[in-house]
């Protein structure tokens, strides 16, 4: 959210994607976040993913709530319409936008404060409605923009910069999403672009509400000794349960993989996800197993990452409410208005 526009120097020979656009075409204005903020790395990963997916910027809507994290939609895909809403209420705005025009590609950015405190109700219900969007939570365990108070995702025992220790249970958006019957729940780390980019692609492609919790350290207020969201702590306790590769529809899978540990999942648009499991017995399609897995590992203080649960079969909002395939915004007035005769007929019943 700044007025400094980036100088667009197009370097000769810069790579183009399938629709002839440069990476730069997926960038936004200059970030005003602190140098080293995890959120900026996530922005970069989003730019990378959307560029590689060759999505037309104009078909994208980018939404957010309020917070440092929620400022970031200004920093990517300048050609997309953006909606920086109010604190904790982004999911409802996204729901309405997609209710009106189901063809829009929706990427929503939120923070742990924005989604798990003031926004917890809407977070839960957008999952329940299974609205077709990628919902990224840039999770740093604090309220960055208001200078470092603990958020609801702060782990018990983690120390604030000023010293006090959080003793309340942390709300894990991934576990919560799974418990609420969500269709897609994943976690990643702003520092692991190789894992993050394919997960973003998977989330965009998933036909439903894709919750992607990204540990994103706040260098100013929560990157110190004793924090459980610092770069150091996260790297140290980083546990990648699943590595995801995203193979677009066009290209066929080259690399051969071992059946036991790798699970290929075909997405509804024909692309494929290759899930390389660290624990062969782990099954990202079994809800209760996923919850148990998260519970046990997080009790060990591990930051479990990867695509923890996915079920493409669950109906998204429009399937549930049987909305027309044609976006409502595309219907002309004549189809929507019953006309005078219908009104007259109707009123025969009102006498």
């Amino acid at each position, binding site marked *: 959210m700044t007025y400094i526009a980036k100088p667009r120097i197009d370097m000769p020979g810069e790579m183009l994607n399938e629709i002839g656009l440069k990476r730069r075409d997926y960038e936004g204005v200059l970030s005003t976040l602190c140098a080293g903020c995890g959120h900026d790395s996530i922005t970069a990963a989003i730019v990378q993913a959307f560029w590689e997916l060759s999505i037309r910027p104009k078909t994208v809507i980018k939404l957010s709530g309020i917070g440092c994290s929620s400022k970031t939609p200004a920093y990517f895909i300048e050609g997309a319409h*953006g909606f920086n809403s109010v604190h904790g209420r982004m999911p409802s705005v996204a*729901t309405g936008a997609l209710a009106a025009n189901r063809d829009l590609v929706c990427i929503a950015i939120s923070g742990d404060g924005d989604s798990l405190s003031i926004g917890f109700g809407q977070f839960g219900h957008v999952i329940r409605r299974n609205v077709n969007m990628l919902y990224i939570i840039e999770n740093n365990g604090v309220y960055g923009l208001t200078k470092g108070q603990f958020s609801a995702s702060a782990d018990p025992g983690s120390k604030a910069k000023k010293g006090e220790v959080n003793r309340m249970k942390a709300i894990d958006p991934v576990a919560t999403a799974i418990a609420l019957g969500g269709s897609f729940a994943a976690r990643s780390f702003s520092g692991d672009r190789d894992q993050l980019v394919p997960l973003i692609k998977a989330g965009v492609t998933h036909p439903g509400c894709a919750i992607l919790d990204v540990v994103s350290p706040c260098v100013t207020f929560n990157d110190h000794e004793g924090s459980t969201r610092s770069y150091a702590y996260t790297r140290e306790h980083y546990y990648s349960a699943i590595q995801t590769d995203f193979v677009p529809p066009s290209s066929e899978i080259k690399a051969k993989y071992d059946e036991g540990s790798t699970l290929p999942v075909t997405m509804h648009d024909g692309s494929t996800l290759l899930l390389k499991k660290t624990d062969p017995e782990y099954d990202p399609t079994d809800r209760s197993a996923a919850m148990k897995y998260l519970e046990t590992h997080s009790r060990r203080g591990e930051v479990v990452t990867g695509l923890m649960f996915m079920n493409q079969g669950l109906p998204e909002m429009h399937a549930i409410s049987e909305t027309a395939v044609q976006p409502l915004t595309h219907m002309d007035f004549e189809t929507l208005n019953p006309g005078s005769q219908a009104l007259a007929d109707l009123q025969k019943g009102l006498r």
Partner: protein
Amino acid sequence: MTERINDFVLKIATVNGTGSASANGLLMKALFRMGVPVTGKNMFPSNIQGLPTWYEVRANLNGYMSRSGRVDVMVAMNAQTYQKDLEEVSPGGLLIYDSTWPRGDTLNRQDITVLGVPLAALCNEHFSVARIRILMKNVAYVGVLSALMGIDPDILRKLLEETFAAKPKLIDGNLKAIKLGYDYAMENFTCPLPVRAETMGDNAGHILIDGNSAAALGCVYAGATVGAWYPITPSTSLMDAFQGYCNRFRKDPETGENRFCIIQAEDELAAAGMILGANWSGARAFTPTSGPGISLMSEFIGFAYYAEIPSVFFDVQRVGPSTGMPTRTQQCDVMLCAFASHGDTRHPLLFPADPRECFEMAVMAFDLAERVQTPVFVLSDLDIGMNDWMIPELEWDDDYQPDRGKVLTPDELRKMEKFHRYLDKDGDGIPYRTYPGTTHKGAYFVRGSGHNRYGAYTEDADEYQDVLDRLLVKWETMRGLVPKPVLRKASRDTSFGVIAYGSSDGAVNEALDRLAEHDFHADYLRIRAFPFSDEVLEFLATHDTIFVVEQNRDAQLRSLLIIETPADDENLIRVLHYNGMPIPSDSVLNAVLDHIKPEVAA
């Protein structure tokens, strides 16, 4: 008992959950079909079963629609409220009760006629199933009234045949119950009464409808496709009706797909967010709610004002403050809606006076919202929204095209050097917008935080103020766009005026007629919108004493008049009714008489 033909108030006191609604509807419709102007008001409790509920039917050959303050015939079916109901009957009136159980001597009143009918006994005798017996007791009193008040039995039969066309065997049962009551009355009382109905036509060109249904119909005709809501009395039936009309008019004939999307939100905050999102991406979206919902939506309303997102809010007002009396009526959210949210905000309000205007103003609301790019409030109330009103048939002009306001087409965008969201190109304070999903060039970033005329984020003092000042220009433009007030001139020149709005209209019109009999004459201006158009200013300027009639305690519209016009404090006389019952004409009459007595005397 003086004769009152086609001019009476019939009130029925029952217990909710006993199915009296259909019986009362039957009475209403019968009178309607006899050509008698009629309205029905339902006074129900905020509970589902077992508490007192009343239905008040007013038949009036002159077409007076409001409550009058009198009760000519009371059907007292509820022992719990018997005493109260008895007291309420006007001198010379009639009370009918179920004499199956002997009444206590508490029930003596010399100035009215009390008739007992053993309704329960009759029904128990002729019906076996317990539930049926209870239901038929209600239908039976319809029979009694049919005999006593001359309500045409053939019309009753016809109505039953229409209603139960699907399940014919119900018809016989109902007819039997009617006959039980009818015959008993014929045998035991001298029928008909001096207070009665007589066929005076067929009310051709009129319909019976409630305001919420009419508003919902307006949303369908306006082309609204997205409705988000959270259930709350008395607005719930608006979305129920919208759902019903959409099922009838908005299903794809081939696929059966919905050409609409109704979302029952998790709460009102979410409902508001949803319609902002939907309007932003180009749909016509609305949310119906009541007072508590507006309070909860306040933050989003301020966002919509500042980010300039069209949106339509229906506030079907109920009795506040707080939860108040959810099943009673008031006009108590005027100030809230006018200035909802923190910071300097102001919002246009529309005031429908009856179901017909609910239909018309629903359409206006969408046009206005998109023309000026701001949230618009339609302030209905429980009386309009949930009661049965007789109105002229609704009309629709097939040439109507929705006014989507200043939306740039891809072509127009192509021709532009650069698109700026908040530039005032036309000097009317209204900028241009674009829809998501259409063009790259039209892309912009909506935000509730400080932004300049180009749509960019700013914390610059002048850039911020520049936008806030333009919003006032837009407000001024709006004064010319909102529906104009309706003026009823007195039969002679007068410096007295009356100002009212919404559901007080009927009471004011009747009161003015009766005041004329006292040789008091006043011009009457019915305000239909905020901000106030020039006609309102002129009315204020040309009358010395103006009675402002409102259904709230704090004279909220009067406050708006004082803040937003040069009008003078002392000239605006408060006439307030806020006990939760629809305002009766005599309360207006008496308030005015009290005030002018000296002058009249003089």
